[in-house]
């Protein structure tokens, strides 16, 4: 959870500050038309903000957002200081969180970087909850506050409320209560069983956090009251189940072929879930903590899958709303310029050969695609009509809304990435096969390459490809109780040896009996680990 988690929307932090370029781009890209139908009625002129002004701007932006059909949770805007922002960073943006050293580590590094001036703080953090909580920093100018309100309170907020992943996988109304429950429960455990034990358990759980989600099964939304009530029931149930599974009294007549049956029958992708339900030695409180980490992981899972869309959507709307404010004469030209400068910084995409390059900027990609969809709807070219017959010339508000609700990054790119965006960004694909001497350019932004390029980019956002696919394969129920995990290789990509060994130690401490991990390519085990220690050679060599 301490890895840069997408729950924290830090739109304006990681962007290279390149003012010169920002300004020149802005001059090229926008002339500033003033709609003569609206007379100037500026909400404010100076750069200072006040609570009255925040309310005034928010009201105006809310009106505009409604005209554009944005459906949002109620907003809760909280003004905080920069120190508090650092605290918020450290607890992955959540207003409350249980205690763990890794959050302290996060805090220390944020603090250090901030003091050194190596890093600016995000202008805002927004939380997927109802009411939707957004943090605004007191240091921001009025223009920035307006931009952030448009971005977070109406952009992200409407995305949280509308996107299918969020609506079906998370329960915005309950998350804060659940966090409170989790914090208190873990605190109680620390008092009763010692902070050290709890810490060790959390370490292991955090390590496996990415494997604590159901990718396909839809979870039941979590409600804190239910949670509390079902806690006891669950404890009893677990014990019963375990007793059955690990029953050592031999059954009188065991059918012969039962020996070969694996447990679980089908490989289980949710490793934490499997451990919570089946690990032989865990106490009920330990199972409950695993469950808490699992639930949080599930809560953050949609955010990981919609980074491009979510940021693109929010950026598109702050851009649109701020311009609209200007067009209707509510903000001054100076304010518009300030907003657009920040905006340009946010969507700055360094080229692959720039020293600032660190992958594709999700803001840029998302924003460009959203703008492009708007363009295709409003002014379709021949090419658009050929590529997107369904949406070319349609109502752009409806089309964007539809896209926002029903896609995640992977499918969104596959569906909507247009040749024009690929050309604008000069995208090209590189294939790196470790067995080849050279890297190969697979496709570029030209007629033959568009489809291939689009598929490659879409794959790049498929979490299933990026995270190693590891599942619980078998448990030796009758023998030494060892658990076997299988890594199903994709594109022959191996697991990192060192971290896998570390991970097995964590798994071992949770499971309590030997843990095996096998990398499988085409049904053949090519690499294997075991904890307590054995190397690949020993394991495969014997076989």
């Amino acid at each position, binding site marked *: 959870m301490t*890895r840069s988690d997408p729950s924290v929307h830090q739109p304006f932090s990681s962007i290279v500050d390149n003012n010169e370029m920002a300004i020149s781009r802005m001059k090229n890209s926008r002339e500033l038309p003033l709609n003569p139908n609206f007379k100037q009625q500026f909400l404010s002129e100076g750069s200072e903000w006040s609570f009255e002004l925040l309310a005034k701007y928010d009201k105006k932006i809310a009106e505009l957002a409604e005209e554009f059909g944005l459906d949002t949770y109620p907003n809760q805007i909280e003004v905080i*200081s920069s120190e508090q922002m650092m605290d918020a960073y450290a607890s992955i943006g959540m207003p409350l969180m249980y*205690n763990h050293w*890794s959050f302290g580590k996060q805090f220390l590094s944020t603090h250090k970087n901030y003091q050194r001036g190596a890093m600016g703080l995000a202008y805002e953090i927004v939380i997927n909850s109802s009411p939707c909580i957004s943090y605004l920093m007191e240091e921001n100018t009025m223009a920035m506050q307006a931009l952030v309100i448009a971005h977070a309170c109406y952009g992200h907020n409407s995305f949280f409320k509308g996107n299918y992943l969020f609506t079906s996988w998370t329960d915005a109304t309950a998350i804060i209560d659940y966090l409170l429950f989790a914090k208190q429960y873990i605190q109680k455990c620390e008092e009763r069983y010692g902070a050290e034990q709890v810490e060790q358990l959390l370490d292991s759980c955090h390590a496996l956090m990415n494997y604590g989600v159901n990718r396909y099964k839809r979870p039941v939304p979590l409600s804190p009251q239910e949670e509390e009530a079902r806690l006891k029931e669950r404890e009893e149930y677990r014990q019963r189940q375990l007793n059955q599974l690990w029953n050592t009294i031999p059954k009188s007549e065991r059918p012969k072929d039962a020996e070969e049956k694996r447990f679980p029958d089908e490989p289980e992708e949710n490793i934490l879930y499997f451990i919570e339900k089946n690990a032989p030695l865990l106490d009920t409180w330990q199972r409950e903590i695993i469950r808490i980490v699992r639930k949080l992981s599930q809560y953050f899972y949609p955010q990981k899958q919609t980074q491009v869309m979510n940021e693109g959507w929010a950026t598109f709307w702050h851009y649109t709303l701020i311009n609209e404010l200007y067009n209707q004469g509510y903000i001054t030209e100076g304010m518009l310029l300030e907003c657009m400068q920040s905006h340009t910084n946010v969507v700055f995409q360094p080229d692959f050969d720039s020293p600032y390059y660190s992958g*594709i900027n999700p803001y840029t990609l998302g924003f460009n695609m959203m703008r492009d969809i708007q363009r295709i709807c409003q002014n379709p070219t021949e090419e658009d009509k050929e590529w997107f017959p369904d949406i070319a010339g349609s109502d752009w508000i409806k089309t964007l809304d539809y896209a926002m609700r029903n896609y995640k990054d992977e499918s969104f790119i596959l569906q909507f990435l247009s040749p024009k965006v690929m050309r604008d960004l000069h995208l090209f694909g590189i294939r790196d096969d*470790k067995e080849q001497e050279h*890297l190969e350019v697979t496709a570029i932004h030209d007629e033959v390459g568009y489809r291939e390029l689009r598929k490659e980019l879409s794959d790049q956002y498929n979490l299933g490809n990026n995270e190693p696919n590891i599942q619980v394969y078998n448990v030796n129920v009758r023998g030494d109780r060892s658990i076997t995990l299988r890594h199903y290789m994709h594109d022959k990509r191996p697991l990192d040896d060192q971290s*896998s060994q570390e991970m097995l130690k964590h798994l071992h401490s949770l499971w309590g009996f030997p843990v095996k991990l096998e990398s499988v390519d085409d049904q053949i085990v090519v690499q294997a680990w075991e904890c307590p220690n054995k190397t690949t050679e020993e394991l495969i060599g014997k076989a």
Partner: protein
Amino acid sequence: MTHIIDRRLNGKNKSTVNRQRFLDRYKKHIKEAVNQTIKQRSIKDMEQGTEISLPSRDVSEPIFHHGSGGVNTRVHPGNKEFHQGDLIQRPPSGGGGGGAGEGQASNTGEGMDDFVFQISQDEFLDYMFEDLELPNLVRKQLKDASQFEYRRAGFTSAGTPDKLNVVRSLKNAHARRIALGGKKRKRVKEILEELEALDEKTKAEGTEIEDTPIRAALLEELEELRHKLGKLPFIDDFDLRYNNLIKVPMPSTRAVMFCVMDVSGSMTQAIKDIAKRFFILLYLFLKRNYKHIDVVFIRHHTTAQEVDEETFFYSRETGGTIVSSALELTDEVIRDRYNPADWNIYVAQASDGDNWDDDSIRCAKILSEKIMPQVQYFAYVEIGSRFHQNLWEEYRHVASAFPEQFAMQDLTDAGDIYPVFRELFERRDA
């Protein structure tokens, strides 16, 4: 519907607990880093926070991730001259421009910078002085306490008016009035009931209420009782209670530190620098234990003087060396200004070991007879001498006579200061 909330006044140190947990978890590493820093740092800026740098491998949190190998296809922006099918030389060691993979590689902790963070001055000193303690501190606190503090200890029946406790006094008065009037009030109640019964009876008989002798007697008694009750004083002398304050002996929180140094010609500036560092370290350490610290600088060659800090460290004198003169002066100053009953006395002496031969015996004598009985601790460091002279030998005798209070070590260069200091003040198991 929007709520705007000003959270700026809420606590801003939400992360304190987590920060502390991190520090605790990596205590060993941090201590090591602190020790490293001390070696490099001049003592002058000892009293600052510091940057701690831990290998990021040690603080990393593992996750499953891909290692290098296999086929990896990625899309990048900013194409300039590539065409489909172009072959490109693999850039050295992954990463960078057109290379493989993005952020993932950093999760191994390999190739990443160290994890660097800041600890405060207090934390720095905590780590620095951890496991060190002032010798004989406990003894001093129990014995010889000459400072007192007044503490509340219940109530007394005698005292001065300014200590009067009103609530307590009124409570007492109230209780007394209840106790003394109880019997009479009970009788009053009885009489009233009797009178009522009497009246009912006459009423039932249909006659007028009139003064029968019984009734008259009752009324008279009632009158008398009421009079007596009325005469109970509202507050009496023995109701009064006073706050009681008692004297509690307080351990002395004052300490004086004597810096004694040889400034004869044989002491070079380098040696004096080392001595200075040692003194500063001691000063910082004392400051953590005592509220108030005096420092007395005594320097000597053939004669001793009490001087200010500047002169002590930086003016140079030449001449012979008579150590006993300094010890005499120390004793004098203690007797003059620092009564051992009030002060915790620490003496640190630095020298290169030079002394007039027959003076060393005198030194030992002054130490054993005059100084040692009065001080908490006497630390002697000999700096830069390759072989010990007879002063060292004499001091050894003193050390064996006062093993608890007398310590001696030799220092050769600046790097030794902290280790030697640690050794001198290491926490000893009782």
